[in-house]
């Protein structure tokens, strides 16, 4: 076994980062790129969040108060697109960049230049996407799922820019995924066998495979839209022999694995944090790995549960219903393993642990409402109501976002060399926790009562719950500036920490804090 030769080394053999702006433009360092991903993601989180605030402000009371319905549609669409492609996915890629090489004892990502490229595509794609809001006819207004023919025959002229933005975001994700696979498969330290890898690495490996399998399908779908709009084809135009329902099949073939892309890395994060603060090893490591793999496999055969009401035959409804329910089995394995990890542990409740426990509880609630939605005959009632909105925000906000917060608090001492402010961190947690539940829990009720999603106005009987949801939304939104403050405060100073402030296992805790610019240039020995 030879030591890794660092061929990307500069001739002058300096080990610190370059100076000035060009450091960030030209960097191939996984830590620099990881940080850029995380900052970009946070900027997008605030942007998409501002749009959510506009939505909640309009829905504060019934009637049209603040914005036009046409602009409201653009807000719901852009909020979804930006949160999915701009906030959640880049945040996970950023965490992968920072942590995977340090967790498997690699000196850097396997393909550092491609890494730089996959990041730097993102700001331009996001800028192009956001710029559509200022174009004639406005930005995309057809929902983040952009169903044809709404997104082809009836879409604003800016849709072409939307399509190219999706192309670019897709290319970035695919390159990021390829890089992660190449790193995990080829750069593990000697002795770091697959079944010794931390679960965050495992979940990201599987996520990366999902990404290379489905992001190209999304690229195909938007390419077909592009051709329908500009080149006279009829993929989704029934008048020319196409079929709009086909769009939904292609979209959800991408879309369902996509929702697991946004949750699997969270599973890895929580599986790292719970054992640390319960002071017990993770319960059922092997079953966790197989559970994640099963969830990933099942994600490919359940897509039509998003389409129960388009008129698929009984056999199809039953197949997709049972296949969807089957996902509850591996997910249940994971939840029980997390609970068993905490059971009779010496638990302490630092901020990352609070976010992780909230993840387990609230993600399970989101999973249960997902099970309710999977029941085909009942779904006809729930379809396109606020119940669906409540469901996917319960799996995405406390699922993806809380896990990202937990990861940030957990690894901030490693990244900065300082401990974050625990009091402020806990304040951030509780305000987020209360705000989030206040926002999304009432949505279950108004959804079951029949309030449709994506409308700027609603019937009077939904007024009270909507006002509660809006108050919770403003609370959750405002709280995130506290997170920004905590992170900046932690970067600028604070209590110095040692290599292993949480006294836990893992290669990332064997290097100094803050992690030096280059780590594991000589592979560590993994026992």
């Amino acid at each position, binding site marked *: *076994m030879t030591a*890794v*030769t660092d*061929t990307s080394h500069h001739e002058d053999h300096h080990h610190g980062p370059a100076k000035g702006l060009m450091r960030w433009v030209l960097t191939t360092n996984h830590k620099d790129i990881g940080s850029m991903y995380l900052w970009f993601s946070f900027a997008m989180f605030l942007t998409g969040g501002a749009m959510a605030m506009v939505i909640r402000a309009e829905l504060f009371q019934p009637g049209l108060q603040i914005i036009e319905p046409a602009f409201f549609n653009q807000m719901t669409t852009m909020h979804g697109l930006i949160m999915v492609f701009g906030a959640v996915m880049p945040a996970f890629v950023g965490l992968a960049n920072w942590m995977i090489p340090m967790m498997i004892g690699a000196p850097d990502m*396997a*393909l550092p230049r*491609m890494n730089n490229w996959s990041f730097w595509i993102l700001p331009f794609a996001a800028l192009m996407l956001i710029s559509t809001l200022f174009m004639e006819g406005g930005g995309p207004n057809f929902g983040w799922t952009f169903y044809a023919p709404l997104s082809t*025959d*009836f879409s604003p002229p800016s849709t072409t820019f939307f399509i190219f933005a999706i192309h670019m975001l897709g290319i970035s994700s*695919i390159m990021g*995924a*390829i890089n992660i*696979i*190449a*790193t995990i*498969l*080829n*750069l*593990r*330290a*000697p002795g*770091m*066998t697959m079944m010794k890898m931390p679960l965050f690495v495992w979940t990201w490996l599987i996520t990366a495979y999902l990404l*290379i*399998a*489905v*992001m*190209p*399908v*999304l*690229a*195909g*779908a938007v390419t*077909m839209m592009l051709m329908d709009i500009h080149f*006279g084809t*009829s*993929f989704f*135009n*029934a*008048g*020319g*022999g196409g*079929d709009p*329902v*086909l769009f939904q*099949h*292609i979209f959800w*073939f991408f879309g369902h694995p996509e929702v697991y892309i946004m949750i699997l890395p969270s599973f890895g994060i929580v599986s790292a944090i719970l054992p640390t603060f319960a002071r017990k090893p993770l319960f059922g490591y092997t079953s966790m790995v197989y559970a994640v793999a099963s969830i990933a496999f099942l994600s490919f055969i359940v897509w039509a549960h998003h389409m129960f009401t388009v*008129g*698929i*035959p009984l056999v*199809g409804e039953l197949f997709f219903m049972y296949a969807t329910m089957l996902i509850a089995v591996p997910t249940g394995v994971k939840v029980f393993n997390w609970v068993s990890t905490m059971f009779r542990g010496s638990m302490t409740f630092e901020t990352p642990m609070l976010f992780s426990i909230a993840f387990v509880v609230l993600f399970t609630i989101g999973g249960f409402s997902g099970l309710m939605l999977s029941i085909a005959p009942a779904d006809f009632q729930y379809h396109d109501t606020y119940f669906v909105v409540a469901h996917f925000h319960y799996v995405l906000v406390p699922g993806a976002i809380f896990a990202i917060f937990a990861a940030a608090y957990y690894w901030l001492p490693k990244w900065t060399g300082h401990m974050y402010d625990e009091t402020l961190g806990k304040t951030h947690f509780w305000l987020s926790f209360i705000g989030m539940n206040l926002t999304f829990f009432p949505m279950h009720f108004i959804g079951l009562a029949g309030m449709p999603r994506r409308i700027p106005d609603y019937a009077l009987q939904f007024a009270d719950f909507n006002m509660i949801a809006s108050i919770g939304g403003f609370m959750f939104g405002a709280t995130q500036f506290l997170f920004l403050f905590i992170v900046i405060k932690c970067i600028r100073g604070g209590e110095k920490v040692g290599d292993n402030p949480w006294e836990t296992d893992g290669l990332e805790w064997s290097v100094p804090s803050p992690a030096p610019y280059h780590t594991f240039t000589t592979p560590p020995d993994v026992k």
Partner: protein
Amino acid sequence: MADKDDKNPLDSSRRTMIRTGLVAGGMFGFGFAMVPIYNVFCKVTGLNGKTDPNPYKYDAEKAQVDTSRTIKVQFVATKNTAMSWDFKPTVTEIKVHPGQVGELDFIARNPTDARMIGQAIPSVTPFQATNFLHKVECFCFTTQTLEAGEEKVMPLRIIVDQALPRHITKLTLSYTLFDVTSMGERTLAS
């Protein structure tokens, strides 16, 4: 590197990159392959209610009329959003025995002062009946061109297959008329 001792990690990374890149490229192709797969699947199963775009080969000798049951066939004419024509069937419902030819007319009128091309897209409900409703003659096999102000009577002749499952007693044949002026005249039949 973990298991291949003598290999340079750069080479193995490059190999991984090429392989995964090929998978991504293949999946891009698969997205497009879903179009014919979907069409063939729907044609075989009749799932999306799309009927055969070709005229049914009517064989008078084989076509035994099954007088033991009568099937109600209803007709619906819808215009797609941008379509300005008047479009309706002369009767909204006929009763036929399986194997018997049912005839009626649809009337289309172009009230605009420009020449336009329309395409009617049929759909059958319930879906299980899709492959049992045959069209011997239909204006939907090709595009229809109407001059400004022109009105056209378009005949439709259908046969309900004798093999239609017995629990189905009522069919709906729905046409949606699309404005395809920009696409030009063509025929959907193959």
